[in-house]
C-alpha cells in the first residue's frame, strides 16, 4: 500500500506551488535600493595579447558609475581551484592563475576583459562598446592532441606546456595490466569522444553584490548550488573577507546540473564592485553569455581497451583519456576526469586489473568542470561501449557477456581503490528484462521493418558513486575542502520544526522529501516541518548539493540532529511523565511509558522545553535545538540497467527513441515520485547528450554553438514515455537511512544505451558499424550508413 506520508510516500512537491505559479524568489527577482548594473566586455577572440585597454571614452558616457579593468584588481586573489591532482610521477598539477578580469592575455572567447557599472544595463552596455581594447591575436589551441605537441602555442606562458597533469591510476597496477593484455585471448579497442556540453539551466547565472558601509558587511546573492562554498572560496582566497563579514545567499535557483557549483568571476566582481562603488551591483547573464562563461561539461577523448580470456571473462582494462580543462581550472575541474572517473572504471564487473591514464589539457576554450554525473558518465560510457563492441567482435550476446562478468559478492573491493558496499546487478538486469519486455523486441523490430524503419536495442549497466567522502580520504586525494554536511533542527515551542540544512535545493525537492524523514522519525505530519537552506546567515556551514549527495549526506546529518532532538525530548518527557527515561517510547507523535497508558504529546514536550515551569532545569537546558555534522565513511554506489529502443530512418538518418526503460537500485527511497522525476530528468539529459547536444568550436576558437539556433537542447517531443523502476533496493550499509542518491543516474546510464541502440539498428541493415560518436545527429547517422 502506498503510504500517505513519511518515508516511502509520494508526497506532492510543496515547492512546486511557488515555482509553478510565479511566486518563486530567484536571484534576478532581488533588486536592492540604489542598485547599479554591470556589463562585462568579453573577448571575442580565443587567444591574444592585450596591449592596451582605453576606457577614457567609456568613463564619460551617460550613467557610468565606474569602469573596471584588471588594474583595479591588483592585490586581489585570483579564482581558486578546489582540487589539486598529483600526477603519475608524484608531481602536483600545473595550476595557472585565473584573474577576475583578463590580465595580459585573453585565453578564450567570452573571457571578461573589462566591466562597466552604470545606472542601467543599457548604459553599461553602451559604455562597454566605447572601450577601446588593443589585442594582438595569437594562434589558438583548440584540439587537445594538438595542444600537447611540442611546438603548440602555450595557453599560459608561465607554465611548461599545455599539460595540466598526466595521471595514472592505479600506477602500481600498470605492469600487471600490460601483462594481462599480453596474455589475453581477445582484446577489443574502441576510440570515442564524450562530447562537450553546456549545462543550460533554465535560469541563467545572476549575482547581486551589496555592501553595508555602516557595518562593513558584504552580501552576495547568487545562483549557487553551495553558498557556503562560495563564501569560503571567495572570502578566503579572492577578496580577503572573513566569513563573519560575508553573507552569501542562494535563494530559489532554477536548475544547476553542476554548472552552479563553481565560484565564478562575476560573483567576486559584484561583491568587490559593491564596495568600490558604494552601492549594490547586479549582473544577470544573458543566454549568449551563459554559453561562453558557464563552465562546460564532459569533452573527453578516450581510447579504451578490454582484455578477455578464452571464456570471455574480463581480465584487464586500460584507458587513455585526454580531458579538456579549457583555458583555466574551474573550481573542481581537476577532480572530474580523475577521482570521479578513474575510480568508477570497474563498473559493475569483476575485471581484476585496471589502469587509467588521463592527460588533462589546457586549450583556448571555456573552462570545463562537473556536469550532471561528472566523470562517472564518461567512465560508464566508454566501459559499456567497449563491452558492446567486444560482444560484436566475439559474436556473443552483449547482455550475457555482462551477466557473466557481474560482481556478485559484496562488499567488493575494486582494483580502482573503492569498495562497493552493496548492489545486486543480476536483480536490476532481471528487472530491466521484465519492464523493457526484451523478449518482445524481435517482434517490435519486425513491425518497424514493415514500416520501413530500422529498429535497434541498446542495453547497458552503470555504476555511480554518490556522496563523495570521507573528508580525510578526499583530503589525501587533493580536495581542498571537506565533504561533510550539516543540519540544525530547531523545534519551536508549539511543536513545529525548522531544519536548517547545508544541502541546497535547486529543483531536487528537498523541501518535500526532507520533512518526510523527520515526520517518520517523530510521527508527526510533514506540514509541521519547514526546510531552510541557501543562506549562510541562517544555516550551519555546509558543502551544498552536487554529486547526488543531498539525501545520503545532508539527509544523514538531519537524521543525526533529529536523533539528538528526540533524545533530549525523551528526557523532558520522562520528567513530565515521572518515569524512567529508558521506559519512554516515541510513537505517532506522543511519548509514552512502556507498558502503561501514560503519555504526553509531542507538542506538550516542546512547549515544556520553551516554557520550562515543570522542567528538570538542574539536568538539562531549556530549548530544543540541535546541530549535527555528518561525514560519511564511504561513497554510496547506486547502480542499474537501462534499455533503449530506437527507430532509424534509413533515408535521413533521423533517430527516434521508441522505448526507454530504467531499472535502478538507489537503496532505500524517501519519495518514489521525486526519485522517478530525477530519473526522468537525468535520462532526458542523457538523451540530449546522445542525440542532440554538441558544444563545438572552430579551429580559431570561435564558439560555433553559441545559441539555441545551433546548440540543440532536447525537447519534450524528443522523449518517449519512460518506464522506470526502483524496486530493486540494496540499502547502503553505512548511512542511517540506507539511501544511495538518484540525481545523476539517468544522465550516466542513458547515453550508452542510446548509442548501442542506434548501432544495433544500423547493424540490422547489414552495416558494419560498431560505434558512432555523439551526438547521433541525422547527418552522422546517415554518414555511418554510407
Amino acid at each position, binding site marked *: 500500500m502506498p503510504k500517505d506520508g513519511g518515508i516511502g510516500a509520494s508526497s506532492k512537491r510543496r515547492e512546486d506551488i511557488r515555482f509553478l505559479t510565479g511566486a518563486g524568489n530567484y536571484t534576478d527577482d532581488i533588486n536592492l535600493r540604489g542598485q547599479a548594473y554591470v556589463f562585462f566586455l568579453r573577448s571575442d577572440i580565443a587567444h591574444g595579447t592585450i596591449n592596451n585597454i582605453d576606457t577614457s571614452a567609456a568613463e564619460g558616457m551617460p550613467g557610468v558609475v565606474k569602469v573596471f579593468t584588471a588594474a583595479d584588481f591588483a592585490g586581489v586573489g585570483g579564482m581558486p581551484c578546489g582540487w589539486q591532482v598529483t600526477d603519475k610521477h608524484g608531481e602536483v598539477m600545473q595550476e595557472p592563475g585565473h584573474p577576475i578580469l583578463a590580465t595580459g592575455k585573453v585565453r578564450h572567447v567570452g573571457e571578461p576583459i573589462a566591466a562597466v557599472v552604470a545606472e542601467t544595463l543599457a548604459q553599461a*552596455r553602451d559604455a562597454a562598446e566605447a572601450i577601446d581594447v588593443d589585442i594582438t591575436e595569437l594562434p589558438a589551441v583548440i584540439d587537445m592532441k594538438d595542444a600537447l605537441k611540442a611546438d603548440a602555442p602555450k595557453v599560459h606562458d608561465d607554465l611548461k606546456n599545455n599539460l595540466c597533469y598526466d595521471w595514472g591510476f592505479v600506477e602500481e597496477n600498470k605492469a600487471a595490466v600490460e601483462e594481462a593484455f599480453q596474455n589475453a585471448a581477445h582484446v577489443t579497442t574502441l576510440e570515442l569522444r564524450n562530447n562537450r556540453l553546456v549545462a543550460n539551466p533554465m535560469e541563467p547565472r545572476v549575482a547581486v553584490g551589496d555592501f553595508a558601509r555602516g557595518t562593513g558587511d558584504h552580501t552576495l546573492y547568487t545562483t549557487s548550488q553551495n553558498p557556503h562554498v562560495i563564501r569560503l572560496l571567495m572570502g578566503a582566497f579572492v577578496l580577503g573577507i572573513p566569513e563573519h563579514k560575508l553573507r552569501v545567499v542562494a535563494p530559489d535557483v532554477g536548475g544547476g546540473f553542476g554548472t552552479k557549483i563553481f565560484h565564478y568571476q562575476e560573483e567576486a566582481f559584484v561583491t568587490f564592485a559593491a564596495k568600490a562603488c558604494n552601492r549594490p551591483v547586479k549582473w544577470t547573464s544573458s543566454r549568449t553569455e551563459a554559453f561562453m562563461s558557464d563552465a562546460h561539461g564532459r569533452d573527453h577523448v578516450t581510447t579504451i581497451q578490454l582484455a578477455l580470456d578464452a571464456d570471455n571473462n574480463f581480465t584487464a582494462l586500460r584507458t587513455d583519456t585526454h580531458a579538456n580543462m579549457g583555458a583555466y581550472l574551474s573550481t573542481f575541474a581537476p577532480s572530474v576526469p580523475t577521482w570521479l572517473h578513474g575510480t568508477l572504471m570497474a563498473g559493475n564487473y569483476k575485471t581484476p586489473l585496471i589502469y587509467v591514464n588521463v592527460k588533462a589539457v589546457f586549450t583556448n576554450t571555456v573552462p570545463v568542470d562537473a556536469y550532471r554525473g561528472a566523470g562517472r558518465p564518461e567512465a560508464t560510457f566508454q566501459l559499456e561501449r567497449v563491452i558492446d563492441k567486444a560482444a560484436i567482435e566475439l559474436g556473443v550476446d552483449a547482455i550475457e557477456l555482462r551477466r557473466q562478468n557481474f560482481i556478485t559478492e559484496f562488499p567488493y573491493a575494486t582494483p580502482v581503490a573503492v569498495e562497493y558496499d552493496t548492489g545486486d546487478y543480476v536483480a536490476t538486469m532481471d528487472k530491466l528484462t521484465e519492464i523493457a519486455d526484451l523478449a518482445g523486441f524481435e517482434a517490435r523490430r519486425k513491425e518497424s521493418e514493415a514500416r520501413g524503419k530500422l529498429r535497434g536495442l541498446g542495453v547497458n549497466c552503470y555504476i555511480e558513486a554518490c556522496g563523495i567522502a570521507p573528508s580525510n580520504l578526499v583530503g589525501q586525494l587533493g580536495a581542498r575542502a571537506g565533504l561533510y554536511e550539516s543540519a540544525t533542527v530547531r523545534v519551536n515551542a508549539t511543536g513545529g520544526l525548522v531544519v536548517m540544512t547545508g544541502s541546497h535545493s535547486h529543483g531536487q525537492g528537498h523541501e518535500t522529501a526532507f520533512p518526510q524523514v523527520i515526520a517518520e522519525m517523530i510521527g508527526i505530519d510533514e506540514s509541521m516541518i519547514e526546510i531552510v537552506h541557501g543562506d549562510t546567515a541562517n544555516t550551519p556551514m555546509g558543502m551544498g548539493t552536487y554529486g547526488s549527495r543531498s539525501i545520503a549526506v545532508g539527509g544523514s546529518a538531519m537524521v543525526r540532529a533529529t536523533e539528538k532532538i528526540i533524545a533530549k525530548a525523551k528526557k523532558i518527557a520522562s520528567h513530565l511523565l515521572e518515569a524512567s527515561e529508558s521506559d519512554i517510547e516515541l510513537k505517532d507523535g506522543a511519548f509514552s511509558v512502556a507498558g502503561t497508558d501514560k503519555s504526553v504529546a509531542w507538542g506538550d514536550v516542546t512547549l515544556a522545553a520553551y516554557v520550562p515551569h515543570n522542567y528538570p532545569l538542574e539536568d538539562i537546558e531549556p530549548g530544543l535545538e540541535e546541530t549535527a555534522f555528518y561525514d560519511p565513511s564511504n561513497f554510496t554506489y547506486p547502480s542499474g540497467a537501462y534499455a533503449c529502443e530506437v527507430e532509424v530512418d534509413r533515408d535521413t538518418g*533521423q533517430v527516434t527513441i521508441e522505448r526507454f526503460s530504467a531499472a535502478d537500485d538507489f537503496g532505500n527511497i524517501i519519495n518514489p515520485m521525486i526519485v522517478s522525476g530525477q530519473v526522468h530528468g537525468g535520462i532526458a539529459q542523457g538523451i540530449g547528450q546522445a542525440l542532440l547536444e554538441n558544444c*563545438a568550436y572552430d579551429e580559431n576558437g570561435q564558439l560555433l*554553438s553559441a545559441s539555441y*539556433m545551433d*546548440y*540543440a537542447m532536447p525537447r519534450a517531443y524528443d522523449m518517449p514515455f519512460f518506464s522506470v523502476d526502483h524496486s530493486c533496493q540494496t540499502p547502503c550499509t553505512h548511512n542511517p537511512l540506507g539511501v544511495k542518491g538518484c540525481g545523476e543516474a539517468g544522465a550516466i546510464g542513458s547515453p550508452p544505451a542510446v548509442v548501442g541502440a542506434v548501432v544495433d539498428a544500423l547493424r540490422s541493415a547489414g552495416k558494419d558499424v560498431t560505434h558512432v560518436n555523439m551526438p547521433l*545527429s541525422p*547527418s552522422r547517422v546517415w554518414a555511418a550508413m554510407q
Partner: protein
Amino acid sequence: MYNFDFVKPATVDEAVKALADDEAQALGGGQTLIPTLKQRLASPSKLVSLTGIAEMKGVSKQGDAVVIGGGTTHRTVAEEAASAYPGLADLASRIGDPAVRNRGTIGGSLANNDPSACYPAAALGSGATIVTNSREIAADDYFQGMFTTALEEGEIITEVRFPIPQKSAYAKIAQPASRFPLVAVFVAQYGDGVRVAVTGASNNGVFRWSEAEAALSGNFAADALDGLTVASDDMIGDLHGTAAYRSHLVGVMAKRAVAAAS
C-alpha cells in the same frame, strides 16, 4: 538594443513615407529583426511597424489564386488558407512554434529571405507573385540569393498571390537546434507542369530543382525522381550536416513531398 524611433502607420502610403527616411527599417512580426536588434547587430534609426495596416492582412481566394496580405501571420494562413490551398496552409502551420506563428508574417519572411526559411519554398514552388506598394514581381525574379531579394529600399510587400495547384505538399527535415529546415522541399503540380522548390540546402538560398520538375511533369510519382541527384557543390555544410548530406536530403524530401501531395 540601441535606441530607435518607432512608428506604426495605419496605411501602406503612410508606411512608405515613413520608410523614406535614412536608416528606417520596416518591422513585420519581428521574428528575425527583434532578436537581431537585441544582439545589437542592427541599428536602425526608426522602426516602421507594418502590423497596424489593415489592408495588408487577410487571406482571400480570388479566382484561381489565394491572395495573402503581406502582414498576415503564419497562424492565420494556416487556418484560413486550409481549404483553398492545403499545401500552403500546412507549410505555414509548421513554421517555428506557436509564438512564432502568432507573430511572424509572410511579408517579413519573404523580405528577409533566410536561406532556411519555409515560405520562400512555397512562393517559388507555387510561382507566386510578390506584390509591393509599387509593382508586381514574379517569384522567379524575386529570390536573388541568400538574404537577397528584388526589393528596393523602402519597398513593402503588400500581398502575395499564390496560384492554386492541383496537388502540393511540403516535406521538411528540421535542423536539430533551430528547427528551421535542414532541407525542405515544396512540390506543386499545375496544369502546365510541376514546380519543385528547395530551401535550407543551398548557399544561394531557395532554388528550383529543374530536373525534378521535368521528371515529375511527365510522371507525378516519387519514383520518377529515382536516379536524380543535386550537385553538392553549392550546398550548405555546417555543424548540422555536410553538403553531401544536404544534397542527398533534397532527393529524399522531394520524394516525400510528391508522395504526400494532395
